[in-house]
């Protein structure tokens, strides 16, 4: 099967690497559909493939022994799942799964490592993304200790809005409760409040962003810095 040309891919990392970098990785990209619930990496299991998304939202989750789950970070068409393999790790303690359906490409870990050895542009771009991802998780941790549930919800909705096309986000209250590490009634109440301010419209499994600028203000500085890092170091985002 012919591999996708660089002008065709919508993944933000694959779009910005130079032509030689794309020539190193392009032939190894396999198109994949990513339905909601797809597990890309299971905690403790060896890495086999990395995934570059063109659409959809993935989530990196950590769990306690009694299955309390918390989201550590999200990624979409700007990112890459499985970057631990680039850092010399063979497996990790987090689970990576798809929360909003999409599609993208997978590449075997061996092919990705080889391509990174051949191309400085590819390797440096992917490592800058790791830096941006760490910035995101740093802000998540700041937000978790300093913000109300409503403020944290505003931030997460903006992060999801950046990764979908249009203003509708297909998110269940269950997923939001994992994202925010709160019980579902706290999610339902926070949605009710933010909807009351006129920033969103909330339906059973869908949230529509109505006033993005107001949500950014409401997120009170907790949204925007990692996103600006991506634009500064990698390329267009959101």
């Amino acid at each position, binding site marked *: 099967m012919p591999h996708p040309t660089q002008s065709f891919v919508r993944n933000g990392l694959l779009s910005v690497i130079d032509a030689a970098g794309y020539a190193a990785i392009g032939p190894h990209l396999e198109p994949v559909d990513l339905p909601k619930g797809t597990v890309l990496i299971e905690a403790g299991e060896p890495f086999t493939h990395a995934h570059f998304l063109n659409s959809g939202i993935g989530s990196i989750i950590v769990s306690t022994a009694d299955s309390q789950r918390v989201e550590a970070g999200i990624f979409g068409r700007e990112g890459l799942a499985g970057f631990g393999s680039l850092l010399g790790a063979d497996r990790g303690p987090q689970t990576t799964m798809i929360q909003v359906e999409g599609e993208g490409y997978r590449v075997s870990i061996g092919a990705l490592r080889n391509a990174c050895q051949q191309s400085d542009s590819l390797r440096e771009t992917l490592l800058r993304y790791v830096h941006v991802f760490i910035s995101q998780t740093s802000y998540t941790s700041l937000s978790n200790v300093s913000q*109300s549930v409503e403020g944290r919800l505003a931030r997460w909705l903006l992060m999801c809005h950046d990764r979908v096309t249009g203003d509708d986000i297909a998110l269940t209250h269950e997923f939001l409760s994992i994202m925010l590490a709160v019980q579902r009634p706290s999610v339902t109440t926070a949605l*009710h409040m933010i909807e009351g301010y006129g920033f969103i419209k909330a339906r059973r499994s869908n949230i529509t962003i109505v006033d993005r600028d107001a949500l950014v203000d409401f997120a009170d500085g907790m949204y925007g810095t990692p996103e600006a890092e991506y634009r500064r170091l990698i390329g267009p985002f959101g």
Partner: protein
Amino acid sequence: MSRFYLHQQIANGIIEDPDGTEVIDLAAARHEAILAARQLLANAILVGVTPIGRAFQITDEAGQALLTVPFRDALPPRFINVLDDTW
């Protein structure tokens, strides 16, 4: 396991639980409601606003009301006793 819905009574209406929660029985659903009320009260205290919820109304899948759990039941009496201690 049964599905229970925790609808929240607020000052001027109700916030419906769209999805419900699967637990073993009504006692477990009440426990969920107590934990959820504590989290809502804690968030309101943290932010410095008046909590909007007053109680959870627990219903079954048919919409039958089974139990009302007032938010004040979520405050452990021992906490209140400690706070009321004169010293």
